[in-house]
């Protein structure tokens, strides 16, 4: 080793060193869900990293092949478990596409309202957790309060806060409750209030802005190549939202905007989500005006919808219909179908291979979180360790959806 006093100037002394390998392990408070990131650090900078997912793989797609079509709903619930209604609705729409039926209007608006509430729940969780990991506990708790209101509403409607299994092929499990419209509007009003308070607290905060702006920049072309969809794609400037690009349900008939970012950094990803919450509340307000107050929620197709219980107990046709659906499964005609909706994280797709018996032959879920997490390596390579947390938080990787 050279003597230390030779060539000594005020610049730093080069010491021989090796990169340090650390493991931000699957069990980590800042790793939303379970993801392992093995990093090679040089000082604070990440030279290389390896993102390993799959710790929450539960074999959902294979399990679907062991039951009926209606038994898939609890599985898809537990994919993106912070916006389960969007998964339910997406899968129900896929089955209905295969059947070639459209649910009644009342059901479409019902699905939209509940779906947007679920989307808001997803964005509140993502944004709130991101803020909290930067040290902002207060906005996090305010957003959790908002999320609790949404979950109270969903519990009133479906009976469960999170894993409702409320969707059905051909409709929903139950019609809207009596106070649904008033409750939805009240929740929307409260949420908008909470969001404005959060904005006031965060958007002027030096620390918040410094930690997020120009951190984890993803260019639009790269985002598209990676297969990104959803808020993070829009934050990079690509205006793709399935609700606008290929409207389903009644999204073509309500007014709302799709926030697009400019810089593609973590700050944009945060703001896009906050703006989307406001737009979702606009959709909810419009849908509550348009939803019919009476009328059927389910289509009346005896192949897929269970009959009312009084009929099952008193008529032979009701019993046979119930028997066939429960024991043999829904008879969806054979074929293949790909149906996609805007999930909380992006394009949530279901590719169904149907063989005509009551059991799915293959259910392939296109998990937006999986493709989004594929970009993590690119985002954090070259960044500092401290940037990993907000970058990863801004991707909103939901373990259940990424790994299934």
């Amino acid at each position, binding site marked *: 080793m050279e003597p230390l006093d030779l060539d000594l100037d005020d610049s730093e002394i080069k010491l021989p060193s090796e990169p340090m390998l650390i493991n931000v392990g699957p069990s980590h408070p800042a790793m939303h869900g379970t993801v392992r990131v093995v990093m090679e650090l040089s000082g604070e900078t990440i030279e290389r990293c390896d993102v390993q997912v799959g710790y929450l793989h539960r074999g959902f797609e294979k399990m679907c092949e062991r039951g009926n079509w209606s038994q898939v709903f609890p599985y898809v619930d537990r994919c993106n478990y912070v916006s389960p209604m969007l998964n339910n609705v997406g899968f129900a729409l896929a089955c209905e596409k295969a059947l070639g039926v459209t649910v009644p209007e009342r059901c479409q608006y019902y699905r939209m309202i509940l779906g947007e509430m679920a989307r808001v729940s997803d964005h509140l969780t993502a944004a709130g957790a991101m803020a909290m990991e930067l040290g902002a506990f207060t906005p996090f708790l305010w957003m959790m309060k908002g999320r609790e209101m949404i979950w109270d509403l969903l519990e009133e409607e479906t009976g469960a806060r999170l894993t409702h299994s409320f969707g059905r092929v051909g409709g929903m499990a139950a019609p809207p409750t009596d106070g649904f419209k008033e409750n939805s509007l009240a929740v929307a009003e409260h949420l908008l209030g909470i969001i404005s308070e959060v904005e006031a607290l965060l958007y002027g905060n030096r620390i918040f802005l410094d930690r997020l702006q120009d951190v984890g920049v993803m260019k639009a072309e790269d985002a598209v190549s990676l297969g990104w969809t959803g808020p993070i794609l829009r934050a990079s400037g690509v205006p793709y939202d399935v609700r606008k690009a290929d409207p389903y349900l009644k999204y073509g008939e309500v007014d709302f905007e799709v926030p697009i970012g400019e810089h593609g950094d973590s700050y944009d990803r945060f703001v896009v989500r906050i703006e989307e919450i406001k737009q979702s509340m606009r959709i909810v307000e419009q849908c509550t005006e348009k939803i019919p107050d009476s009328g059927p929620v389910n289509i009346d197709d*005896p*192949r897929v919808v269970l009959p009312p219980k009084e*009929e099952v*107990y*008193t*008529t*032979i*046709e*009701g*019993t*046979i*219909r119930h*028997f*066939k659906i429960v*024991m043999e499964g829904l*008879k969806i005609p054979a074929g293949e179908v790909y149906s996609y909706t805007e999930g909380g994280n992006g394009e949530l797709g279901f590719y169904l291979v149907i063989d005509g018996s009551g059991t799915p032959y293959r259910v392939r879920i296109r998990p937006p979180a999986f493709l989004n997490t594929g970009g993590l390596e690119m985002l954090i390579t070259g960044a500092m360790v401290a940037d990993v947390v907000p970058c990863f938080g801004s991707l909103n990787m939901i373990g259940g959806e990424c790994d299934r």
Partner: protein
Amino acid sequence: MPTFKLDDREIPFEAGDTIIRAAHRQGIDIPHYCWHPGLSVAANCRMCLVEVAPPPGRKPLMLDVVRWDHEKQDYVREKKPKLQPACQMQVAEGMQVFSESSEHVARARRSVQEMLLLNHPVDCPICDQAGECRLQDYWLEHQRSSKRMHDEIIHMPKAQSFGPTMVYDAERCIVCTRCVRVSAELAKDPVLDKRERGNLGEIVLSPGRQLDHAYTLMTEYVCPVGALTSKDFRFKARVWFLRTARTICVGCATGCNSFTDYDPRYDKVYRYRPRENLEVNKYWMCDEGMLDYARIHEGRVLAARVAGKTAAYDKALEKAAKLLRRVDPDAVGVVLSAQHSNEDNFALLTLARDYMGAGNLFLSGKAPGVGDDILRHTDKNPNTAGATALSTSSPPGSFADLVAALEAKKLSHVLVLGSYAADPALADALGKAQGIVALATHEGPFAEHAGVVLPVSSWAESDGTFVNAQGLAQESERAIRPLGDSKPGWKLVAELGRSMGYPMSWKKLKDVRGAMAPEAGAALAGSGASAQQAGVTG
């Protein structure tokens, strides 16, 4: 081959065929209840109605009907073509029949189905037919709506005992008269008949009689609904839990083709059903054969025994090998089994004749029983012909010959595959043997008197080939896994042979069949095809 058109498809037919029979030959199903390929035509259910285009140059026969019009809230007059029952209408060359493609036919099927369900009780949860019921299947396929009657259904007698084997429920009955025709035409005993008409129609027994002929379970088999249920199977198992194996009935030498329904979770066989084979049993089986499945689980030897006490399989195998090794092969009587498959018998023959050099062959099985000229054979063993044909050089002696040889001290030991003495009266003479090694499936005289008993799997636990009285070699599929410590006969014999020091290297059934083939020809090796003559020397 003359053809006719069914829904734009050319269907060939034979002279005298009806539409439904010609379609059935091609695997096309026209919905029906009362028609059965093995019975006469009744045409009372009207489910198979199809639209037949009029012959060239003639106008179609149109009927005046009224139809309820929702908009006008009144009946309107209409005309519809007269539909023909496909089960009764004879086919002619060039005929045009519309089944799936006709709207009138769809409406007719819906209406017939609605009518059949009009007074049907809500019994699905307790009815055995659920899961294999035509009313359920056709409702989903053809009706899919509720009925328009809002009154209470007509109540009829339920759960009547019709005889020692059957229970009849008049509410579920659609009076298709399949059971009446089966009793009259198959069993030649017209004990059932239809009474009353309309919604009071039901099936009754002739006065003073019971449903007690030898084919009563066939009435349950043909019944498309849950009106006739067998006392043996009632409430035992739900059919959607059962898997099916294609087997041969081992109740007698007729060798009826059957389905064995078993629950794979518990390795339990719940029932037989007849399998169509126009050369052997047509569509039917007798009661004795249908109920023979109980023998798979009852009276079984499932553990090895030494000197009457349960022993570990390996120990018993060792003991048997030692015993047979030190005995003079000419003093051993080798008993083949008319109850066991060709493969099992071939294995024992190979061990005895080719390795041990024991040439004294005998054949035992069940004693003869009651036969008739419908299906039942007096020989109650499924494979007499096969076992006899395999031991070609010296036809095997009978059980009586074995007893005589034992009493004359010409034989001192017995190596037996099987469980039954063909002459039960002489069975006690087995005690005269110095040592018996029994490869047995069931308790019986051989298992009782044997020094070493090795447990053999039954016919339901292994694939096997059986040659029936007509000389047809038929293959039976395995249903359940070997019960207890039992092993398939051929496998057990191979292990015994290896234990005795002989190079019997068979590990799989196809090894055994491969060894049989050059000797016995394709027929006995059971390559899956039946052959005409099985009396092949080898």
